[in-house]
């Protein structure tokens, strides 16, 4: 145990070293570490926020999807209804048209028939006249004709 000036020298060296650490070593390390801690904390918070917003977006998504599905179903329904309406009206129109055609055809046929009848009648009368002429020219029975004429006269 021989204490001497070494003691003072070591104490001075000690003081200088502490001062150096205090000024130049500790602060930059502290700053770097604290900044990193803050960055990590911020990152974690951001991740949490992102997760939350993702959840919200997913919810929104699901809701809008549901809405869209409902809408599309509505549209499909409307379209179906409209299509059946169109088909119905087309059917109706077609039927009407058909009826009209049938009616006109019928009337035409009637007209044809009438004309044919008229023609036939005319021809029959001419035929009858010619026939009568022929018969008349061949045999005239005065008695018979007289009877017939008399009968006709009686009926009048």
């Amino acid at each position, binding site marked *: *145990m021989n204490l001497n000036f*070494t003691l003072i020298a070591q*104490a001075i060296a000690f003081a200088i070293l502490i001062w150096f650490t*205090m000024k*130049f070593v*500790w602060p930059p390390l502290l*700053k770097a570490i604290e900044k990193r801690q803050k960055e990590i904390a911020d990152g974690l918070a951001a991740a949490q926020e992102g997760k939350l917003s993702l959840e919200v977006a997913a919810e929104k998504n699901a809701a809008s999807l549901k809405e869209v599905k409902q809408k599309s179903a509505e549209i499909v329904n409307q379209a179906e209804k409209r299509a059946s309406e169109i088909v119905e009206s087309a059917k109706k129109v077609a039927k009407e048209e058909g009826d009209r055609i049938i009616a006109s055809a019928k009337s035409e046929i009637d007209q044809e028939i009438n004309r044919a009848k008229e023609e036939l009648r005319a021809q029959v009368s001419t035929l009858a006249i010619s026939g009568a002429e022929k018969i008349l020219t061949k045999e005239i029975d005065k008695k018979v004709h007289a009877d017939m004429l008399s009968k006709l006269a009686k009926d009048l």
Partner: protein
Amino acid sequence: MILHVDSVVMAIIIGIFSIGLIWLVARKATSSVPTKTQAFVELIFGFIDSQVSAIFHGNRHTFIAPAALTVFLWVLMMNAMDFLPIDIMSKFYGFLGLHEWKHVPTSDVNTTFGLALGVWFLMIFFGIKAKGLRGWLHEFFCEPFGAKIWVWPANFLFNLIEYVSKPLSHSLRLFGNMYAGEVIFLLLGLWAATGVSGIFFSSILGAGWAIFHILIVVLQAYIFMMLTVVYLAMAQEGH
């Protein structure tokens, strides 16, 4: 005026080496992904910081924590000089023309007492700074037995003993451990010089002591650092 040049020179070289090394890392410290060296320095930083924060409840970053880091690293590295084999190193120092050169500054009581005395002055300085000169003197005379005037002498005596014993125990604990370690290495070396059985036993025992010494070196540096922090914290926070 006597100066142990070996202690002073070795202490300064080791101090510049150890503090300078972490200064080089701290200078370029980034808050983004650290390099492996920075991660290692941050490991030490975190260790010191957590130890100090457990004891001292004030703004530790202005003084106490940096001081603790300095003490820990410096004392650790000075103690670690003990790992260098004394016989080979004495040959090396002899080659340089340095005879009887001791390379473990902490096995010199002047070094440890110098450090302890530095801490002692800091303790008084922070005590007065935290409580005012009046408060500090009041505590000196009125603790631990009370403020009655007839217990003042007892209080004063107690505090005097405390203030004297703190640097003594602080410094002699470190000095004793490191000095004893070195003496045992020397004794084992002397035993090895006695013959074949001496070489055999001293090498086995020397290996065992060296392994145990790894623990002592770190443990004593840690204890010295912790006591520094405790003394400074106590000075600021009162009894």
